[in-house]
């Protein structure tokens, strides 16, 4: 095993080009477990820890460009206003120690369906900034997940950052685990209201081979909110609408039975979380609308 320690991003890209099998190492919270337990012996470890700008973020007018290695703790503490869904998801990641090391780049690189960041990234409509010596490209999050633990990266590419639209409305994230902390998702659900475009987006974790959006649920809700003029009126959500949304979200799942939970439970739980997160976000939206009108 070789340990590659690029000092700069360009060096990292060069190393990855030279050794496409090199496994990028940032927080280490996935890779080191596999090494400690003898599940993986990559020929090269590519340590990205010296590239400090991977741990930085820039807040632009419409998006936040989040460095791939910004630890979840910083997201929770500093980006709650801009990226509320991701900040909530970050808070559910593993333990404080893991949140101090792990970042979104690792979640995307591993592309496990159970990664906590995915539902929030899907719901916000993020784009992944991937780069190789051949150049840079933006991969829409909807095209990023390609299979169980497979993603759209080419072998010579590294994730440099994620561009996440700043929230224009309330966002929520909810995750079921069989423990009250430090738990891998049995399933998870992310929801973002986008009042600017009068749309909603969703993300489902751990309930399909890849993280997925509940497209039918989104379309239903977008249309229903529009039809009833609820964006404008800020009126209460009819319970039947929330129920239907939950059922459609459950229908978007394609889960399996495993040690963490049954397929049927995952489907059911996603439905419950979809209904609840819709309730929370909509109440929050109504609150904002009311205070905006008062002001």
């Amino acid at each position, binding site marked *: *095993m*070789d*340990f590659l*320690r690029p000092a700069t991003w360009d060096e990292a890209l060069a190393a990855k080009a030279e050794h496409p099998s090199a496994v990028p*190492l940032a*927080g*280490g*919270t996935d890779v*080191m*477990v596999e*090494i*400690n*337990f003898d599940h993986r*012996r990559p020929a090269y*470890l590519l*340590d990205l*820890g010296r590239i400090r700008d991977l741990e930085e973020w820039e807040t632009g007018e419409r998006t936040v460009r989040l460095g791939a290695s910004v*630890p979840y703790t910083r997201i929770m503490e500093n980006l709650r206003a801009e990226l509320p869904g991701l900040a909530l998801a970050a808070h559910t990641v*593993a*333990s*404080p*120690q*893991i949140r*101090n*090391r792990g970042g979104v780049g690792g979640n995307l690189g591993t592309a496990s369906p159970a990664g906590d960041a995915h539902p929030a990234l899907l719901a916000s409509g993020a784009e992944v900034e991937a780069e190789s010596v051949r150049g840079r490209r933006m991969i829409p999050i909807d095209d990023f997940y390609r299979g169980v633990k497979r993603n759209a990266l080419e072998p010579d590419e590294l994730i440099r950052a994620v561009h996440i639209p700043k929230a224009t409305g309330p966002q929520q994230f909810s995750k079921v685990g069989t423990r*009250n*902390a*430090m738990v891998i998702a049995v399933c998870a659900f992310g929801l973002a209201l986008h009042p600017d475009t009068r749309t909603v987006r969703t993300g489902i974790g751990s309930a399909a081979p890849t993280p997925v959006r509940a497209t039918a649920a989104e379309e239903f809700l977008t249309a229903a909110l529009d039809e009833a003029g609820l964006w404008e009126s800020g009126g209460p959500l009819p319970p039947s609408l929330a129920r239907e949304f939950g059922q459609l979200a459950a229908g978007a799942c394609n889960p399996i039975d495993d040690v963490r939970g049954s397929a049927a439970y995952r489907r059911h739980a996603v439905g419950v979380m979809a209904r609840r997160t819709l309730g929370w976000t909509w109440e929050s939206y109504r609150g904002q609308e009311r205070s905006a009108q008062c002001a």
Partner: protein
Amino acid sequence: MRVNITVNGRPQQADDVWEGESLLYVLRERLGLPGSKNACEQGECGSCTVRLDGVPVCSCLVAAGQAEGREVVTVEGLADFAEERAGRGCAAGAPGACGTDPDTARRWQARPAPGSDAQLAPVQQAFIDAGAVQCGFCTPGLLVAADELLERTAEPSDADIREALSGNLCRCTGYEKILDAVRLAAARAAAPTAEQGA
């Protein structure tokens, strides 16, 4: 490969490190600092928690090479670290030889606690006094995490303590006495003299 790390204030060098070795392994097996514990080696128990450039992390999930040139504080250096923080002077940790040799282990004798010669961080003393130590395997990691919590939050609520320590498993105590210990350390810091009357 060779790895240079500053551990408990003292520059350390380890040679012939296998590239897949964790910081935990290097601390325990190469630098003579077995205080950080090897309970799960998968980031699910917190017993290997150290400060890496000030940040609490699971040292089992930091590749040794990633710690190159960085500052690490382990439980062995916690008392000095706390003392330095308290502004009462500065002392470097003094790691000895590797691990514990059998002669030392054989000579170990339980004596009345706590030795007045041992200089402990307030959180260490509180763990002893509150009965928060049983088998003690989780203790080093908990101490590093709890000390960092109290550094950030002088008067944590119970929920704050629980959240901050939710990455540290303990199998012996049922956590009640650990909560007591952190409350005690916080209370003593808030009223350093009130305690004397106990």
